[in-house]
C-alpha cells in the first residue's frame, strides 16, 4: 500500500518559506498546495530541495495565480484541466495506475462578499466541478482549499452548492434527489475539526469581532471527498498543523500567530492507494 501526504496552507501573502520547508520535510509531504503564496516557485523549490531534487515545480500550463502546487512527483502527473482565477482542477495520474481529480481553490472572503454572494459563488463553483467530472467521466474527486465558509454554512451543505456532509456513511449513498434532480455528495471530514478536545486550537482560522453572533474559531480550510474516494482517505490523519516541527505557529493564547506567520493554520491529511 502506498500513501500520499497532502498539505494545504493559506500563507496570507507572507514569505513563510522556512516554515513551509520545515512542515514539508517533517511530514514528508507529497502534494503541497499553497494559497496566497507571494514567493516565487523557484525560490521555494530550491529551499525544498536542499537535501536532493525531490520536489517538482507547479505545472507550467497553470494560469491560476492564487494557488501554487508543488509535488514530489513530476508535474506531468498532475495536469491542469480547468482553471479560473480562484481555482485549479488537476488530473492526477499515479504510478500505480490510479487516477483522480484534485481541485484546489480559494473562495471569496467574508470581508468583501456577504453570505448571499458567498452562497452564490459556492453554487457556481460546485456546478463547474460537476461539469468537469462529467466531461472527463471521472467521479473520483478531492477538493481542498480556503472556502472562506464554515462546513455548516449554506453554500457548503446545500444540494446545489458543495453538498458536503459530515458523515462518510451518508456520503457513501452517492447522491440525493431534490425536486427530480440528482445531486452527488461530498464527504466533508473537516466538520470533525471544531473544538479543542484533542488539540490546542478549535479551528483553522480565528477572528473575534464585536457582534452578538461570533464563532471566534472557524474551519474555513476544508477538504471535500467524493464517495468513490472515501476509502482512499485515512480518517485519523486529518489534522490542523499547529507547529512547523521547530516553531509553534500559535501565539501564547493558542490562536494563529498572524503577525509572524499566517492567519490560517495548515491542513494535513493522508491518502492511501
Amino acid at each position, binding site marked *: 500500500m502506498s500513501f500520499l501526504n497532502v498539505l494545504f496552507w493559506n500563507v496570507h501573502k507572507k514569505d513563510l518559506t522556512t516554515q513551509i520547508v520545515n512542515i514539508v520535510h517533517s511530514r514528508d509531504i507529497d502534494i503541497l498546495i499553497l494559497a496566497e503564496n507571494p514567493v516565487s516557485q523557484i525560490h521555494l523549490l530550491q529551499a525544498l530541495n536542499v537535501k536532493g531534487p525531490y520536489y517538482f515545480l507547479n505545472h507550467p500550463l497553470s494560469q491560476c495565480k492564487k494557488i501554487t502546487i508543488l509535488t514530489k512527483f513530476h508535474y506531468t502527473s498532475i495536469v491542469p484541466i480547468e482553471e479560473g482565477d480562484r481555482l485549479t482542477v488537476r488530473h492526477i495520474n499515479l504510478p500505480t495506475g490510479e487516477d483522480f481529480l484534485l481541485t484546489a481553490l480559494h473562495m471569496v472572503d467574508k470581508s468583501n462578499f456577504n453570505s448571499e454572494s458567498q452562497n452564490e459563488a459556492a453554487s*457556481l463553483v460546485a456546478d463547474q466541478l460537476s461539469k468537469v467530472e462529467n466531461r472527463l467521466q471521472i467521479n473520483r474527486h478531492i477538493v481542498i482549499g480556503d472556502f472562506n465558509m464554515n462546513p455548516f454554512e449554506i453554500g457548503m451543505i446545500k444540494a446545489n452548492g458543495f453538498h458536503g456532509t459530515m458523515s462518510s456513511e451518508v456520503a457513501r449513498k452517492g447522491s440525493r434527489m431534490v425536486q427530480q434532480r440528482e445531486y452527488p455528495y461530498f464527504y466533508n471530514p473537516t466538520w470533525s475539526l471544531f473544538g479543542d478536545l484533542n488539540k490546542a486550537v478549535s479551528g483553522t482560522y480565528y477572528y473575534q469581532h464585536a457582534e452578538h453572533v461570533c464563532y471566534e474559531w472557524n474551519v474555513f480550510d476544508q477538504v471535500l471527498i467524493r464517495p468513490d474516494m472515501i476509502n482512499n482517505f485515512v480518517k485519523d490523519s486529518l489534522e490542523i498543523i499547529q507547529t512547523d516541527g521547530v516553531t509553534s505557529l500559535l501565539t501564547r493564547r493558542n490562536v494563529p500567530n498572524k503577525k509572524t506567520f499566517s492567519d490560517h493554520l495548515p491542513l494535513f491529511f493522508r491518502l492511501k492507494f
Partner: protein
Amino acid sequence: MEMQNLWPDFAIEPTKSPKAILKEQAGYLMAKTNNVLSADVDTSTYQNNLIHKFYVVAPAMNNYRFEVFYIVHKIINFYPLSIYWYPEENDPYKESIEINSDEELINALRKIFNAPTTVKIISSLLSQSLAE
C-alpha cells in the same frame, strides 16, 4: 364559429443576445490564433439568472480551459447585466461592471480582451500549444 388566433403580434428583439455576442467573440479568437486556441461559452442558471462563463480553450493541451470572466443577467431580460472579472493580476477583488446595452457590452469585452492579464494568459497558452 370559426376559431380566431388570439395571440398578439410579438416584437422580435433586434439586438443580439449577450450569449450570441460572446459566441461570436469566441469564434474571432479562433481566427486570431489560427485555430490554435478556441473559446467556449458555458451557460447555467441560478435562481432567476442566466450565467454565461467565457473560457479560453487550448485543444492542443488536452482541452485545458481557463475561465476569463462571466456575465449574469435575468432570464427574461438581457440588460442590465453584470460582468465579473479580475482587471489586474493579483487584484483581490472581482470587478463587477454593470452593462445596459449591447454597445456597452462590446466596449467592456474589448477592455477585458486587451487587459494585460488576459493577453498574458492567451500568449502563454498560445506559445505552449505551439510548442506541443
